[in-house]
């Protein structure tokens, strides 16, 4: 291992994890994606009236938030952050251990939630929590050394702080089922969800967008000052919203969400501005999902404000939660479909000197198109099924989502197969 700081930056081998490591996280996310839709289909009758507590709905939610969102965030940040901060991760065994602990923890926790089995929930929660703490240790080590992209690093710090908070709250909520720790567990669960959606995942997604969108579209990074202003407003708004929800002051929650809306307006303005200057003309289907996620983020905040001010009917909470998940899932699926062939092509290019496979060659378009249509149809059906409410529509939505998830798994496996075939051909 290189010892000098400059040596640490230089060669590909020290900044590039073995492809099997990030792909392990992405592969698990693909499987959990399918499982989340499948479990939701089983719980179709309970979705519209769900007000919290154990059961299949809670299991589906955690298969999505832990299994897809956090798993993807871990795999992407462990590979991309060293490049963004010009630092290096050199702990492949630890990363492998994190994957095992987190995968196992997510499976056990979700099974415990599905079966309303408190001991399994506690065991799975502790395993997943341990994996998250180890991941945070790696992440913070990288962020601590600073880097060239101030806005990305600042978002990373605040996202990590949110992750720590939501982990503590999540474990507290599990313990609360047998020992009354919270005066109002439903408010605790709402804070946990907001910290997860807008805090950990939201801030990480916004921060990474400042480097990933320029990288995908081939354009310049937006000015750090504006990105940091957006971050400041987002964090202030989130803090106010959390305090409001925790203490029952709905007005604070609404004002916090409004501040979040201004932060998002700045963020989206920056994204639109950098896209206008892009070098890549054809952005591809991933950007349909990215643009959809950009529309869903402010919609979720508007729904959040209306819900906090009691201006929505009974379905308000469920539709707000749905919009939050739709925003994050759209963005992460877009990132996954760009990053999987990109990383495979990059690894192939470092190993194969003669004609390495291109990103285009590694991207199967048919399954991605199927996924796109199914993804959009699934959320429309779910939304309609919750508003009316018609469990059959919810079930149809979940099954459509599962078909989309299966198509996405096809895309992922095709990329892995083509990458392996290219390596074998080069070795022959």
């Amino acid at each position, binding site marked *: 291992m*290189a010892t*000098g700081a*400059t*040596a640490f*930056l*230089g*060669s*590909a081998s020290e*900044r*590039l994890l073995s492809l099997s490591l990030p792909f392990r996280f992405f592969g698990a996310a693909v499987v959990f994606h399918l499982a989340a839709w499948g479990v939701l289909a089983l719980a179709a009758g309970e979705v519209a009236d769900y007000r919290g507590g154990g059961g299949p709905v809670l299991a589906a939610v955690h298969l999505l938030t832990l299994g897809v969102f956090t798993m993807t965030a871990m795999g992407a940040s462990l590979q991309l952050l060293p*490049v*963004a901060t*010009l630092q290096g991760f050199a702990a492949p065994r630890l990363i492998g251990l994190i994957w095992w602990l987190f995968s196992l923890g997510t499976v056990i926790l979700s099974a415990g939630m599905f079966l309303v089995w408190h001991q399994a929930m506690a065991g799975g929660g502790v395993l997943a929590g341990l994996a998250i703490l180890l991941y945070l240790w790696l992440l913070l080590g990288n962020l601590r050394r600073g880097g*060239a*992209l101030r806005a990305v690093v600042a978002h990373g710090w605040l996202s990590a702080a949110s992750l720590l908070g939501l982990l503590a709250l999540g474990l507290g909520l599990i313990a609360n089922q047998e020992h009354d720790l919270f005066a109002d567990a439903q408010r605790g669960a709402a804070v946990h969800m907001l910290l997860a959606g807008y805090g950990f995942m939201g801030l990480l997604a916004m921060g990474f967008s400042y*480097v990933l969108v*320029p*990288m995908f579209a*081939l*354009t*310049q*990074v937006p000015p750090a000052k504006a990105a940091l202003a957006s971050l400041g407003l987002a964090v202030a708004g989130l803090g106010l919203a959390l305090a409001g929800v925790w203490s029952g002051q709905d007005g604070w929650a609404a004002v916090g969400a409004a501040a979040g809306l201004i932060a998002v307006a700045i963020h989206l303005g920056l994204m639109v501005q950098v896209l*206008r*200057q*892009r*070098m890549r003309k054809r952005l591809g289907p991933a950007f349909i999902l990215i643009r959809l996620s950009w529309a869903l983020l402010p919609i979720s905040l508007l729904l959040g404000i209306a819900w906090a001010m009691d201006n929505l009917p009974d379905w308000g909470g469920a539709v707000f939660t749905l919009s939050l998940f739709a925003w994050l899932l759209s963005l992460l699926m877009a990132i996954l479909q760009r990053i999987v062939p*990109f990383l495979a*092509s*990059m690894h192939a*290019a*470092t190993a194969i*000197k003669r*004609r*390495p*496979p*291109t*990103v*285009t060659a590694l991207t199967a378009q048919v399954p991605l198109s199927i996924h796109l249509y199914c993804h959009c149809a699934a959320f429309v059906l779910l939304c309609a099924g919750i508003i009316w409410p018609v469990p059959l529509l919810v079930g149809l939505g979940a099954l459509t989502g599962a078909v989309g998830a299966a198509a996405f798994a096809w895309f992922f496996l095709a990329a892995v197969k083509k990458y392996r075939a290219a390596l074998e051909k080069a070795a022959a």
Partner: protein
Amino acid sequence: MTVELTAPNWQAEDGHHIDVRDLPPPEPMLQILALLQSIESGEVIVHHHREPIYLYPELAERGWKHEIIEDATGSGGEIRLRLWPD
């Protein structure tokens, strides 16, 4: 092309040189691609402070090949990359 070529670049006997050592990511990649788009043929020598691994898929997509011709990053120096159209 909407990314302006601002990194120092010059023509020499062995090809067109570009120096992206002081730029934050993803600026080196953008500057190199902007240069490739402007010259379209001939050889390019890139001066960088690290191996530009994220550039490789973009090069492959555009039909350019790469080769490291000098790597002094281990002693705090620069890495030089030769690029040429396939």
